[in-house]
């Protein structure tokens, strides 16, 4: 059976069960797929969902994109150079565990309530898993491959770019994937705690109105978004590292 078919069956079973049991629950305490679908159509029709999505995605894309652009090189350098690892490694490890929600008020003081603070929250949440994974990947590069570079008198910068980077790519992609989830969470947190906006605003407003079905719409949209991004990243990974799938010993 093809993989997508298995996924589809799994989805159908879950949604079916939710629909079946969800109907018996008081609509304030829970909701069910068909009610959420109705709310979804309504939100799309009024244009609210599209606008909110756009508003949410802007800081998301900027923060997440910056996290990749900063996290990957930073992880490469930390993993490659002992001095940098000794100097910066602890901050990255600590940063990963940082209770970001608690820092949001401080960020607001620095950056205000608008776009900048939201992008920063997304950036800070996704930076560390990307950086740590890259760092980990670098330390796992076989010494023998580095020695190929050394044997042919490659300068350090070339070894980093042409041997360490491609060898680390699977780890980097894993980090970028892990960061998707954290970035989505960060985006909603930012919208809750700064200017209430975007998808987060729909969640809060409908929750305040006890409109649970509508509240579920952005949540589902966000999860679908994360799945879509994950798939996109997997596709990119396949394009940039086609050898990886061939060497990996996974059964199809």
């Amino acid at each position, binding site marked *: 059976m093809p993989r997508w078919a298995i996924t589809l069956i799994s989805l159908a079973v879950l949604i079916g069960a939710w629909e079946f049991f969800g109907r018996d629950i008081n609509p304030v305490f829970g909701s069910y797929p068909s009610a959420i679908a109705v709310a979804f159509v309504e939100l799309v029709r009024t244009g609210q969902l599209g606008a909110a999505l756009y508003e949410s995605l802007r800081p998301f894309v900027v923060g997440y994109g910056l996290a990749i652009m900063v996290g990957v090189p930073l992880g490469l350098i930390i993993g490659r150079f002992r001095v940098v690892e000794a100097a910066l490694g602890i901050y990255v490890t600590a940063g990963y565990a940082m209770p970001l929600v608690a820092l949001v008020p401080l960020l607001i003081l620095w950056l205000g309530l608008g776009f900048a603070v939201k992008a920063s929250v997304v950036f800070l949440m996704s930076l560390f898993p990307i950086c740590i994974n890259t760092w980990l990947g670098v330390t796992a590069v076989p010494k023998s491959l580095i020695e*190929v570079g050394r*044997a*042919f008198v490659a300068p350090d910068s070339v070894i980093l770019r042409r041997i360490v980077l491609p060898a680390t790519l699977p780890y980097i992609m894993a980090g970028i994937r892990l960061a998707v989830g954290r970035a989505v969470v960060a985006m909603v947190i930012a919208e809750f705690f700064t200017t209430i906006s975007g998808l987060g605003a729909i969640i809060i407003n409908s929750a305040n109105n006890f409109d649970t079905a509508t509240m579920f719409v952005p949540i589902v949209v966000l999860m679908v978004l994360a799945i879509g991004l994950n798939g996109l990243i997997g596709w990119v990974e396949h394009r940039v590292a086609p050898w990886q799938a061939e060497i990996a010993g996974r059964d199809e």
Partner: protein
Amino acid sequence: MGSVELIDVSKTFMLRVDGAQQTVRALENLSFSVSDGEIVALIGPSGCGKTTALRIAMGLDAASGGKVAVDGVTVIGCGHDRGMVFQHAELLPWLTALENVMFGLEMKGMRGAQLRETAQRYLALVGLQDSGNRRPYQLSGGMQQRVGIARALAIDPKVLLMDEPFGALDAQTRETMQAELIDIHARTGKTILFVTHDLDEAVLLADRVVVMQHGAVQEIMNVPLPRPRGDLEALRGSAAFTETRYRLWRAINATDH
């Protein structure tokens, strides 16, 4: 030109085993030389320091004492005057066979059309002109090893250093590769130092065999077989081969006590 001399080379490894500091004396005043155009085999029991000697000759490891000279000049670190063929090929998995050969050339500063042409020429030299666009995982072990040899040869080093280059191959492929190496040597006249566990291989390919024991030279044996050695098969049947192989076997077994 392309002579290599190892002069009183020593190597001590420090390692920690269960918290206790240990020193391993891998090489102790190892001295031997390979003259220009010569093929020398390094043979000896496991752990006697063959790989260590080769890595120091290449410059991948630093000697604790002594020195390595290429054409009389002491070398520090790796250089384009030496080309290394690794035991397990060590091709870069994300590059095609051709790109792997090109990598070494690029590091030597070659650019442009010449780069691809030269790499293609060396792939052809090892009989892989038609597999240039394959990635390492799409090549057999023997083909990978040949790409590794092409990569090392392409930078036109004075000396080729090879660590058990055919050790991981099946007997038949190994014989093909040995013939190929003899052929390449006849055409390029490269100085070659290679490590092997295989007595036949040492006698067939080398002009001299350095027998090592406990990080030092136990004996250096001449191989009185004529060059060029076009027909390895006939050579295997010759009395001179059998006799030399027996002498070498005796030399190695004498070290085992």
